[in-house]
């Protein structure tokens, strides 16, 4: 229990300037970026060092309170939403880039480094850290690793998982462990570090993160294709892949979304079109030119009403703004914005989008869909008012149907936002009883006292609750 004696011990550990116990201020840590989830923590620790993290976890194991890790609180599955009797452990103050190794192409950073700041630092050296989640100006690398964050470049460059080389982890029981390293090849033992990537703050708290860097692509070309039929857009995506081209970006907006964008920003999108595709290729200038020409041709062959090719970097920014404005334009429509995140095999994309549209009709919901057509990760966005009980019920029903459909199509309940609190009830349906049992066993052995982010991702065994 987090009694006042225990908070005194916390204060001794981290100092009073790094401990928040005042109830009113704790209200400002009751949420993350997930709609409609809120729970007050009892205290917040602003961790300045690995020692602080160790101290808090050791104390939690002794005294039996819970610990919820947090970065900037931009998560979209409730991973950083507090639980009963918990301390929020915020790693935001640990925000140094410790090393950029230009020989081995790695960067060693603390968990509180803002993703866009890492981008800026490595790009100044003509290097490249590809993961670019939508919140990259705000979110932290620590949170990105915990959630295995994706972004717009997933198709060609993969996600955060593909860039984590090593981790310093404080285990749930308070020990400090290092896993991985700068070696390109290393097959010794179980690959523990990959187990921590995407563990959503349930298996440990990262205090140092070693990431892989790439040379920065020298050239890039951006195109925007407009389609009368969504199936034509999907056919273009398939044709591009069949032509053995892996574009850096293949982003999709449905009609609801592109109408919202046009209404909000007046950038000249045809509102009678059913879909648009934003396409980008990057790399060696000669290859980029060749691929861009091929992609444009394929788009036209598959029925694109128009294909705009950016002539200048400024034009590229303008074309990309259609996709960049998708979420903001939708979010303005109604008070509550529920951002969904499902993933299906690329070949099932059209079925998924059509099903979302069906759900919108049948449940009388306003849903705009956009997302990463290249990697099959879609963000159906439900726009509603949480004060309307009937609409909330329809939203929950629609949400459930969409997630279930993704599973039925051989997809996943989440592509890049994580399970957290939002989707833990869908876990067994996705991974099966043995999958879930293996995860539970693993978690129990790592965190026997259920200290770290309990109730997230999946519930503990019924007997323990």
């Amino acid at each position, binding site marked *: 229990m987090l009694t006042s004696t225990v908070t005194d011990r916390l204060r001794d550990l981290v100092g009073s300037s790094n401990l928040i116990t005042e109830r009113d201020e704790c209200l400002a840590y009751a949420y993350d970026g997930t709609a409609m989830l809120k729970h007050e923590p009892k205290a917040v620790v602003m961790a300045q060092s690995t020692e602080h993290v160790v101290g808090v976890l050791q104390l939690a194991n002794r005294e039996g309170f819970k610990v919820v890790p947090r970065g900037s609180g931009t998560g979209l599955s409730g991973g950083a939403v507090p639980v009963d009797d918990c301390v929020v452990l915020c790693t935001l103050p640990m925000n140094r880039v410790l090393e950029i190794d230009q020989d081995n192409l790695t960067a060693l950073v603390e968990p509180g480094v803002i993703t866009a700041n890492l981008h800026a630092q490595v790009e100044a050296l003509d290097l490249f850290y590809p993961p670019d989640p939508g919140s990259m100006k705000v979110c932290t690398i620590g949170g990105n690793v915990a959630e295995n964050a994706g972004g717009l470049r997933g198709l060609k460059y993969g996600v955060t998982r593909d860039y984590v080389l090593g981790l310093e982890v404080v285990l749930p029981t308070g020990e400090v462990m290092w896993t991985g390293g700068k070696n390109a090849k290393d097959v010794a033992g179980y690959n523990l570090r990959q187990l921590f990537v995407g563990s959503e703050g349930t298996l440990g708290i990262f205090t140092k993160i070693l990431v892989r860097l790439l040379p920065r692509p020298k050239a890039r070309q951006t195109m925007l294709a407009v389609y009368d039929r969504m199936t034509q857009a999907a056919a273009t995506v398939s044709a591009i892949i069949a032509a053995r081209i892996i574009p850096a970006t293949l982003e999709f907006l449905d009609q609801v979304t592109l109408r919202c964008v046009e209404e909000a920003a007046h950038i000249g999108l045809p509102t009678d079109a059913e879909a648009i595709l934003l396409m980008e290729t990057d790399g060696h200038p000669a290859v980029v030119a060749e691929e861009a020409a091929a992609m444009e041709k394929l788009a036209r062959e598959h029925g694109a009403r128009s294909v705009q090719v950016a002539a200048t970097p400024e034009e590229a920014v303008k074309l990309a703004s259609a996709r960049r404005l998708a*979420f903001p334009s939708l979010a303005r429509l109604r008070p509550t914005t529920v951002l969904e995140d499902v993933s299906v095999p690329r070949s099932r994309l059209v079925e998924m989008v059509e099903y979302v549209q069906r759900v919108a009709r049948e449940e009388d919901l306003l849903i705009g869909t956009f997302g990463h057509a290249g990697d099959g990760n879609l963000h159906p966005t439900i726009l509603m008012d949480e004060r309307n009980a009937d609409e909330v019920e329809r939203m929950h029903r629609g949400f459930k149907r969409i997630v279930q459909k993704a599973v039925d199509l051989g997809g996943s309940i989440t592509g890049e936002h994580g399970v957290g609190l939002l989707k833990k009830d869908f876990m067994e349906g996705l991974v099966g009883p043995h999958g879930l049992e293996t995860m539970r066993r693993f978690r129990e052995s790592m965190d026997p006292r259920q200290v770290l982010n309990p109730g997230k991702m999946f519930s503990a065994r019924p007997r323990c609750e």
Partner: protein
Amino acid sequence: MNKSGWQEGDAPADDDLLNCMRCGMCLPACPTYQITGRERSSPRGRIALMRAVSEGDLSIDSQVLSDELDFCLGCLACTTACPAGVDYGSLLEAGRDQLARRQMAWWQKLPFKLFEGPGRLRVLARLLWLYQRSGVQWLARSLGILKALKLQDAEGMLGRVPFHSSYDSLVGEHRAYGSEKARVGMLLGCVMDVLFVEENRATVEVLRRNGCTVVVPRSQGCCGALHAHAGQLEGARKLASTMTRDFAGCDVVAVNSAGCGACMKHHCEGLVVRDVHELLLELGLTPPTRMLPGRFTYHDACHLAHGQGLKDAPRTIMQAACSEFVELPRADRCCGSAGIYNLTHPQTANELLADKLDAIESTGAAVVGVANPGCLLQIRQGLKQRGDRIRAEHPMVLLARAYK
């Protein structure tokens, strides 16, 4: 849901509070959050606190709430960053209005009275002129009275108060040079009127050169921005309605002070209000007769860039008048002036000012364009203290010079 903790009257609107989806995109834009690193000092945190009051989870008398609404600069950088279009400015004003009604003593409201009757500030300006010229200032400074009263910063910021306000010389009608494109009412402002006489004169001159007949009504007072900013919404509305009456009959009202313009666009119903840069471009800018020599840069006043969404217009005008224009790093970050914030929170204001001055110095510019009286006072004072030779000038002054 419990009963709302707000009192009757103006209160943060539930619709606006709910619009915040807590995505956090405002965090990197917020200067106070950047300073403290605490969620409570961020727009998202402040909205969460206000929402807690609305939902009956937090007392209106919470010290954290009142400290943070007070600590906020009101720079509105968050509204530019916000994807959901949350009207943070209105939330802040209404939240402050609620707290002011509970907390403000009668004597704390006295300074606002200065702005409520036309001419009151001009009387004060005359007194200040007398103070500066009569030797009392010398006496007060040398005896350390100002220091003892903690007024030395505010006093130093004033510069030399001119004897004549711009009102004295500008009231009336000034015919457009050449054919008339528009009949434009001009707001002299309260602070602009007494401390920025040259800036107001230059604005009239520029407007006339751009085909505007400029009307300066005799009975214009204060726009109410300072009131609204401090949570005196009733006073602000009263002043705004007076404004609407004073400028009736003008096609458009031109404003050369960013804070006043933002406030009037928001509160003066029935008036067509334009920032002067915006208006000039809408009318089609008369090209300057020469380019001013040297390197220039431009600082975004918060209530122009964020409050009115005007970033390009003043730059276009600077570029038309200046032979060399360079961008200022983080140009749209608050300079710390923020109304009277530099008087109420000198430490934070000075921290922001130091960053701003460093940025200005890094450009190597000789002149920085600044289109708001508060920022002009703040940045000029900062440059003076550092012994910099860089000057801060209103773009209208620069443009008027380029017409000569």
